């Protein structure tokens, strides 16, 4: 079976509230959704969220890369059969490796295409992604995220998370009032909720040492990306001084990054994200390597991701033996409208059931994609110039 058509949607779905961290404020999603169709008419949907400050990818760059580099190389090629045990690996190999000047990795493009192909093949066979990634648990429990607003706003968000029953919360830090914000959150949540912080690389090492020492008394489970992506020796040195376990996010994009971080014993946690890390196959490779090395993991998400990435993230999470923290599946808690007819967002206590429907387990509504697409690119056979 071969792919015969693809459509790219650059989405612009408004948020119900803006989302802010130390380096960026967003008020709308900017995902790229890939829709593929095979010669039998089966369709699949994948999604990537380009982040210039993470992988170096942009929305326009992803559209161009998929249209001009990746799609022409896979259109009309025979797709791997589902029966193969190494199906995800074969799909990863099907997508050509291309270096782009100025781009750390084309992982958002690869993730979008990989998920679309996987979804398409599974839908054609009428089976769930669970066939490939057997679930080790029936439910996944998600964390809440408190954005980088005032301490009063943070306390208000924390109270909301408390009444929803969330047991894990992440607080964005890297601003002047971090201590006051985290103190307000701890006071609102009480002692039983796990709190971790995420600086998005805002600190220098001396700043991080001071900040983490000041935040540690509030009971911080982990500090995500305290330093900007750079030499792992800096993270290693910080880890030796930090009273809080460290987590790599922007510093963990590729398998090579993982090896370097493991070799330097630079962090306690990896934040593995589908779009950032290049799709299901590569994320599972990272998770396996982390488990071997004794590095614990968080399965993270992209702010503004739609049901497509959330569904794939849930399958990935449910299939891994040990995951300490999970993010994502905010759905209409953040998006004015999601792209699927099925609700993927979490409910009370942040819990959501593992999805069981064909493919990724969500029914994507093409009319919603068209409604929120600020740009649509049809890719016929042979690719198309933009």
């Amino acid at each position, binding site marked *: 079976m071969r792919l015969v058509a693809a459509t790219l949607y650059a989405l612009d779905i408004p*948020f*119900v*509230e803006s*989302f802010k961290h130390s380096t960026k404020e967003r008020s709308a999603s900017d995902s790229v959704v890939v829709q593929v169709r095979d010669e039998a008419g089966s369709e699949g949907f994948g999604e990537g969220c380009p982040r210039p400050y993470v992988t170096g990818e942009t929305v326009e760059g992803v559209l161009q890369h998929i249209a001009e580099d990746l799609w022409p190389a896979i259109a009309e090629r025979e797709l791997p059969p589902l029966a193969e045990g190494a199906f995800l690996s074969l799909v990863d190999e099907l997508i050509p490796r291309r270096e782009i000047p100025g781009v750390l990795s084309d992982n958002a493009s690869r993730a979008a295409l990989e998920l679309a192909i996987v979804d398409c093949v599974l839908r054609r066979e009428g089976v769930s992604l669970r066939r490939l990634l057997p679930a080790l648990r029936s439910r996944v429990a998600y964390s*809440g*995220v408190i*954005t980088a607003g005032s301490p009063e706003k943070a306390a*208000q*968000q924390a*109270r*909301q*998370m*408390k*009444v*929803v*029953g*969330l047991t894990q919360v992440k607080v964005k830090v890297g601003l002047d009032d971090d201590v006051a914000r985290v103190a307000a959150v701890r006071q609102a949540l009480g002692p039983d909720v796990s709190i971790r912080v995420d600086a998005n690389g805002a600190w220098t090492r001396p700043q991080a040492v001071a900040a983490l020492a000041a935040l540690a008394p509030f009971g911080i489970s982990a500090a995500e990306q305290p330093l900007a992506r750079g030499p792992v020796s800096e993270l290693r040195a910080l880890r030796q001084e930090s009273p809080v376990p460290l987590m790599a996010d922007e510093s963990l994009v590729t398998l090579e990054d993982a090896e370097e971080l493991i070799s330097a014993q630079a962090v306690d946690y990896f934040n593995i994200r589908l779009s950032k890390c290049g799709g299901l196959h590569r994320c599972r490779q990272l998770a396996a390597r982390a488990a071997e090395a004794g590095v614990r993991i968080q399965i993270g998400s992209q702010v503004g991701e739609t049901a497509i990435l959330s569904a794939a993230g849930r399958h990935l999470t449910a299939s891994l033996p040990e995951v300490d923290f999970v993010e994502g599946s*905010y759905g*209409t*808690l*953040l998006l*004015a*409208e999601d792209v699927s007819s099925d*609700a993927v*967002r*979490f*409910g*009370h*206590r*942040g*819990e*959501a059931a593992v999805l069981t429907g064909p493919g990724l387990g969500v029914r994507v509504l093409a009319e919603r994609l068209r409604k929120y697409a600020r740009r649509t690119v049809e890719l016929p056979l042979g690719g198309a110039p933009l």
Partner: protein
Amino acid sequence: MPFRSDVEGLFARRVAELTESSDFVALESGSATRVDYDRFIENVFRCHTKSPHFLAFLFTLAPPEAVPSITHNLLEEMGIEEETGESHPSLLRQLAVEAGLSDRLPALETRAQDDLRQVIVDPLLYGTLRELGLAVLCEVVSFEYMLSRVASRIARALEKHRGLSPKALTWFTHHSEVDIRHAEQGIDNLEAYVRYYDFAAEDALTICEMTLREHVFGRRYFGELGLGLGLTAGAS
């Protein structure tokens, strides 16, 4: 008293957001297009045509103190409080028909039903009916509060700029400023609910804040969004 004043302050802020929004200003000033007016009417229909369902739900959860007024509201919505009464959904249909939107009614009815279905199938953010009931009651009362302050303005705008007759606008006049006492009773009911079900005032206010996120009225009336009922609020 703090809960009552806090929740009234919340309602007032949300009403101000609506009336100060560019969409509302355009509606009142006549600078909105015919398409904008029609979409507004469609959204009002979609937002409110299932109100009797939610009042029936609230009836089952109402604390004894609030039962008489919620029963009254429910019967009024269903048009069976008095012999000559008309149900509120039928007044909304009348609005759509008089606006020349009869051909849109089947699709609007379907969308409203889909919205209701979505509320039922979406995962619940709250652990018990106690919290869910507060969210639903808060949403219903907040709309009564808002309409008691702006329904006449909306009716005047639709009459002047969209050419609708007083008969077409009956739904708005039913909810207009004369209904302020009704809205006050709604806030009494919220207070009674919070007392009866032993809410901490801070938790109750938090649920109300989640239910009435920023621009909640504008998103419903101008933004093509379906029912929220606090179930789409939360933890971003």
